[in-house]
């Protein structure tokens, strides 16, 4: 569960959100420029806020009134940006292991098996297809045992056929690992299929929120 109460001014754009992302999978939905990616950046700590607070499962990450802003590397947030940004100089295996935390229970075998990237482990990342890159990025984020998983349009860069093959992996992550997911998308069908809570954003504000069937 993520509690957001924040304001961010950036040139002419203003993001102003006071909302609880309560779903197991919360979809941020809306036209481009609505501020969806900005919300993820702010939760991950890659962008500061002008004012406000952020808490994940009750753990305060940002509270401007108390001068708190946890640096990104201590937030325990798994972020898969839209371009996935796999480290080009590391193998698939070393990419996935990069964020492994000490003493965690999840092993690379479990994650790699679940996402079917086991045969890719010893390859370089430049030879991967779009769908493979998405799965490796997802595995890498999961291996850091995040408290929340942020996915920015994980299916936007892949074609329709591949989309239907990757969605089941996301459902597996949702059902087997019980990591709350915040999912940015502008595809209604995708949101209805995977999310149990949807937030419709426009112009940096929440327009509607609730069950995906009702909101969309």
């Amino acid at each position, binding site marked *: 569960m993520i509690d957001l109460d924040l304001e961010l001014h950036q040139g002419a754009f203003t993001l102003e959100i006071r909302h609880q992302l309560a779903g197991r999978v919360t979809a941020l939905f809306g036209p481009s420029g609505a501020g969806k990616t900005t919300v993820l950046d702010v939760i991950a700590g890659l962008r500061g806020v002008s004012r406000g607070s952020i808490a994940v499962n009750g753990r305060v990450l940002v509270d401007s009134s108390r001068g708190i802003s946890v640096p990104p590397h201590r*937030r325990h947030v798994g972020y898969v940006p839209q371009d996935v940004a796999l480290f080009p100089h590391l193998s698939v295996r070393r990419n996935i292991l990069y964020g492994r935390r000490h003493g965690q229970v999840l092993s690379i075998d479990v994650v790699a098996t679940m996402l079917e990237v086991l045969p890719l482990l010893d390859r370089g990342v430049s030879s991967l297809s779009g769908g493979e890159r998405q799965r490796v990025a997802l595995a890498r984020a999961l291996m850091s045992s995040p408290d929340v998983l942020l996915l920015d349009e994980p299916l936007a860069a892949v074609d329709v056929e591949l989309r239907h093959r990757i969605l089941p992996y996301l459902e597996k992550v949702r059902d087997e690992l019980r990591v709350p997911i915040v999912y940015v998308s502008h595809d209604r069908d995708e949101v209805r299929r995977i999310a149990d809570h949807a937030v419709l954003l426009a112009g940096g504000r929440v327009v509607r929120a609730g069950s995906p069937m009702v909101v969309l």
Partner: protein
Amino acid sequence: MMDVWRITLFTVATAGLATLLMLVPGLWLAWLLARRRFPGRVLVETFVSLPLVLPPVATGLLLLMLVSPQGPVGRVLAAVGIEVVFTWRAVVLAMTVMGLPLFVRAARAGFEQVDRRFEAGAATLGAAPLRVFLTITLPLARPAVLAAAVLGFARALGEFGATIMIAGSIPGATRTLAVAIYSFAETGRDREAAVLLGVSAVIAFTALWISNVLTARAGLRT
């Protein structure tokens, strides 16, 4: 001929040591200028580049004032028994100070080429800033950093003005290639001067060639 070997070896060794000494402050400054916005940034940038535009002899004089036994730094060093002026340490100091600006400029350009998304991604995966630098930024900028080191090394090899001010030209103690060429030519030992010229040319050519290969490789990768 023994002299030529000794001078060459001494110069390469001191320049190599100077290059090693450039690494830590040089990488830190290059990263700071490439990645951080802070008040006084332009001042730091200007200060780092100063030895590039100041006459080397003037830089040498400044160093002399600092590290002479009466100077603020020299006094402290003298108290612990370290002599700098007119020793090999002065040679290394002059080379380091004169090479640093070139190293910083080239390394900084390399860091600026590294896509910030990779650094941001590493941070969200739990990597602290130093780890991000060592495992992401530095490896991705490696060709540029190597080219920067070669450039700094080449500048150190040819250092003359600051060296003559704080180290002089003492045969067997502080005499580098550049200083020896000047001393030999001045005292009419033209043959030795010419041999050293040849040696300098070979080293300089090799260093530049390596630097260009590395830069070209860096360009190909992106």
